[in-house]
């Protein structure tokens, strides 16, 4: 049995007059991709932020515990134990500094060894060509997909055990999404655990080991990917599946790629 890296137990959070999360419980094991699936506003990002202990000022954790490798939270865990890949990479980099400078800054502030060779090898690992050019360029010179890869490279070089990916695919086009998913699957082979947040069932299906479906601040369904089509699935999960399948039907009578490959 794999080790529990993060275990969330009955987590609730909310503002003064509005409860956002209700009794969230799930575990992230070693070498496992867990997907939080839900609509915007269902509390996915809030859950991720409470794992990082970075809830917005007006939101408070009201009950529940989160254990990190059986230990409670401390500041040093950010970066070394958990790191995060943000939703819109374009707004996460400072456009005044080059990618290289920001990369270096993050590594040094987390007490990681820094050398050009190491950074370049990380960038090559995320399948970007010409790492030196990338390090010398400014964020606005790169496309969304490239920035997303740089983010992943940063998360990789921090050697953290758990990576939280908040909608890493939502700003990209379909082909770009697929490339990022392949990359995330590759991360799993490097002994990382990943908490992936997405609203796209197709994305969840293609990379998750376990899927947690969220609706209005609750986890309504939690299952292994293989059980996705099982009869006992929650009503909301079934809705998602049928909407997803419906999107693949069309009047052109064309089978769209992976959908049939997986069936």
């Amino acid at each position, binding site marked *: 049995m794999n080790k529990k890296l993060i275990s969330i137990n009955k987590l609730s959070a909310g503002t003064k007059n509005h409860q956002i999360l209700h009794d969230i419980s799930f575990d992230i094991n070693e070498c496992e991709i867990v997907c939080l699936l839900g*609509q915007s506003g269902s509390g996915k990002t809030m859950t991720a932020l409470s794992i990082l202990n970075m809830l917005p000022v007006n939101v408070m954790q009201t009950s529940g515990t989160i254990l990190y490798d059986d230990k409670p939270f401390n500041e040093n865990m950010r970066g070394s134990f958990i790191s995060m890949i943000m939703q819109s990479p374009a707004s996460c980099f400072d456009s005044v500094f080059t990618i290289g400078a920001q990369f270096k800054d993050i590594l040094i502030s987390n007490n990681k060894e820094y050398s050009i060779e190491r950074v370049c090898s990380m960038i090559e690992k995320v399948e970007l060509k010409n790492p030196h050019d990338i390090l010398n360029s400014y964020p606005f010179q790169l496309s969304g997909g490239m920035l997303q890869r740089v983010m992943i490279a940063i998360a990789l070089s921090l050697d953290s055990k758990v990576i939280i990916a908040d909608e890493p695919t939502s700003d990209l086009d*379909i082909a770009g999404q697929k490339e990022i998913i392949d990359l995330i699957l590759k991360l799993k082979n490097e002994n990382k655990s990943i908490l992936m947040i997405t609203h796209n069932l197709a994305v969840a299906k293609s990379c998750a080991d376990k899927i947690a479906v969220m609706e209005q601040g609750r986890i309504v369904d939690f299952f292994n990917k293989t059980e996705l089509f099982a009869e006992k699935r929650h009503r909301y999960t079934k809705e998602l599946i049928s909407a997803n399948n419906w*999107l693949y039907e069309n009047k*052109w009578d064309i089978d769209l790629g992976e959908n049939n490959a997986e069936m």
Partner: protein
Amino acid sequence: MLKCENISKIYNDKSWFSKKESIKVLENISFHLKQGRSMGFAGRNGAGKSTLMRIILGLEKAEEGSVIFMGKNIHSLKYNELKNIYKDMQVVFQNPQSSMNPQFTVYDVIKEPIENYYNYKKDEIKDIVLNLLSAVKLSEDKLYKNIMHLSGGEQQRVAIARALSVRPKLLILDEALSSLDMIIQAEIIKLLEELKEKYNLSYLVISHDIRIILKLCDDIIFLENGIIKDRFFIEQGINNPSDSFKNMMIV
């Protein structure tokens, strides 16, 4: 209905200190959209889809070529004359939040085009707005709500209602669905299919998601780096697609 001939668009980098660079965003785009058909532009981000849309709408000028909509050359029209074009051609933008004034209520948003084109009295306008709301399946109690207090799907419905208020013949959807959640995407596509029958609309769908285009369109144009790579018509199906188009189909 809409005919584009040899459109080319070049962006000149007008920096004083560096070398003058010019980037060709679109090259020799020609197509013809016939009445009653819908067309889709597929392509990756940065393929020039949005620039093409802005050129069709007359918001940007093309260096070469012409856009002819219902017999009129859009690029020879002045600001006031474009108004008549927009009565038959409407657009729903990518991001519903930013395409509506954040200080407006649903009613304010939808009544703006109605006021521009018709001389109705106040209660007549209200009736029309309520009709449109029910056409896009929004409940009446949303009428005086601020736009920002609606969910993304509801906002996009309001944007569709606003575009339909002048009874256009062609509706341009610029990535109008890609920022929405999946279930809502499916709902809005169903709604668009219904509205197509009801108002006898043609769509011009711009998207990187081939599923949406296959759902709504009869003609497909695949753009890559500003050039038309493939053209497909529903009668012939998809034959001989280029490799990059095949890539798009693996969703």
